[in-house]
């Protein structure tokens, strides 16, 4: 059993390494364009509302805390605590997506979505409209891929929760909880990088 636990966690770490390369590719391309167009970038950063971002960051950090507690509960065989912590984690995960939804809606209303046939108007600084379009694409792709990973994470948590309810886990077998915890923490960490990169650096507007 130990060998299986070892293998499973090691396997998850390797998988997370691939995810780092996946997101890393996007981060890299974003950085290249940011360096090419610093003023356009500064204007896009000024538009972003860090309040949304900060709220989401807090939400995810709390969800990572509850996830860590869930893993601990599984390790100690505390079935009820495990289920409650999982539910809290999922709740905050959903909060994240809801807040993101509000934020995307605001972008849509502000005509800042260059996808879907030009829902795009960059009147704040039209001289940078083209480059800002590129940077906004990256914003949506990066946060979009991240949100997809969150959704997958919620799916995983639901499965783990069902398994927990059936009493599958015990101090001698809680591998899926551990491994899902790793995944959840990783998705959290990606956001920890996204938030400063997209919202904080170069931001000059006051918090609304």
């Amino acid at each position: 059993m130990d060998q299986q636990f070892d293998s499973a966690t090691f396997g998850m770490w390797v998988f997370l390494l691939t995810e780092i390369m996946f997101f890393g590719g996007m981060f890299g391309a974003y950085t290249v364009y940011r360096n090419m167009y610093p003023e356009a970038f500064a204007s896009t950063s000024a538009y972003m509302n860090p309040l949304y971002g900060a709220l989401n960051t807090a939400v995810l950090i709390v969800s990572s805390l509850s996830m860590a507690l869930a893993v601990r509960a599984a390790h100690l065989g505390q079935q009820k605590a495990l289920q409650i912590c999982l539910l809290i984690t999922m709740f905050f995960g959903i909060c994240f997506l809801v807040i993101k939804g509000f934020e995307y809606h605001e972008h849509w209303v502000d005509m800042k979505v260059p996808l879907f046939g030009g829902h795009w108007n960059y009147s704040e600084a039209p001289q940078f409209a083209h480059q800002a379009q590129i940077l906004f694409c990256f914003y949506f792709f990066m946060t979009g891929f991240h949100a997809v990973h969150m959704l997958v994470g919620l799916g995983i948590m639901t499965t783990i929760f069902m398994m927990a309810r059936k009493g599958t886990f015990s101090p001698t077998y809680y591998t899926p909880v551990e491994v899902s915890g790793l995944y959840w923490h990783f998705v959290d960490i990606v956001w920890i990088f996204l938030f400063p990169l997209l919202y904080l650096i170069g931001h000059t507007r006051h918090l609304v």
Partner: protein
Amino acid sequence: MQLPLWPEAASAVADDIDHLYIYLTLVSVVMSVLIFGTIFVFAIKYRRRSEDEVPKPIHGSWQLEVTWSVIPFLVMLTFFWWGAKIYFLNATPPPESMDVYAVGKQWMWKIQYPEGQREINELHVPIGRPVKITLASEDVIHSFFIPALRIKHDVVPGHYDTMWFNATKPGRYHLFCAEYCGTEHSGMVGWVTVMEPADYENWLAGGGSTGTMAQQGERLFEQLGCSTCHLLDRQGRCPTLRGVYGSRVQLADGKTVLADDAYIRESILNPNAKVVAGYKPNVMPSFQGQISEEGILQLVIYIKSLGIINAPGAPTAALTQQDGGKQ
């Protein structure tokens, strides 16, 4: 039945590259013969003679490993050094180069000479003079390849690329597009004619019925309304272009840039990218999509003809009422 095995060499650089290629080939042949020969000899000398034989193991020898790692690497360094030398030489056109402009467009090459000659899929150059080609693409990535000169350079849309050569042997040589660009990629071919200087002058004199590139650029300059601001304007809305080419321009954000071909091109297509100090953004409209790359090159040559100075400094106020712009 034609069976050429070696391309013609039409420049000193081509000869140099051929020598390097021959050196590479020789070293490769020697390496291959050594390895294949050794294996051949071993395979025969040590062939299995009975089913029961069990050879003694030889685990390894770090001395051998180091030797046969270091020596090949040192040989490779000679390749690297010679190749880098040629590459560096090819990267910087001599200051006395004559200019030619080539625009790649699906699926043809449009060549322009400052004197006004225009050609499609044909390039004429004299021997013994360095020629600098400025390359632009109207659409996708192409690549300008002249095998006889052993040179090529990708033509990437969105900016200018340059290459140079000095042909030394008269003749007619292939020109190929060497970056896949769509349906008629293999039709985007032409000829480079290298001529004796006298022949070249004759040829040059014979064409250009539409005027020199500068004259064509001037016509465009007026047609598109550039002269309204940049030459005739009294309100200081935009910087004068007299003497800009080749100077160092101070920008609104404090940086200075060299006003070269790329700067002019960018200013036409994306005026707000680099706003000159003392002027406002959003005044000059973008001409993206309204002028072909050839047209932009003509404008660049025209602006170049407005005087090249190398003095740094702030632009002068555009209050003079000048006509056409020819000095």
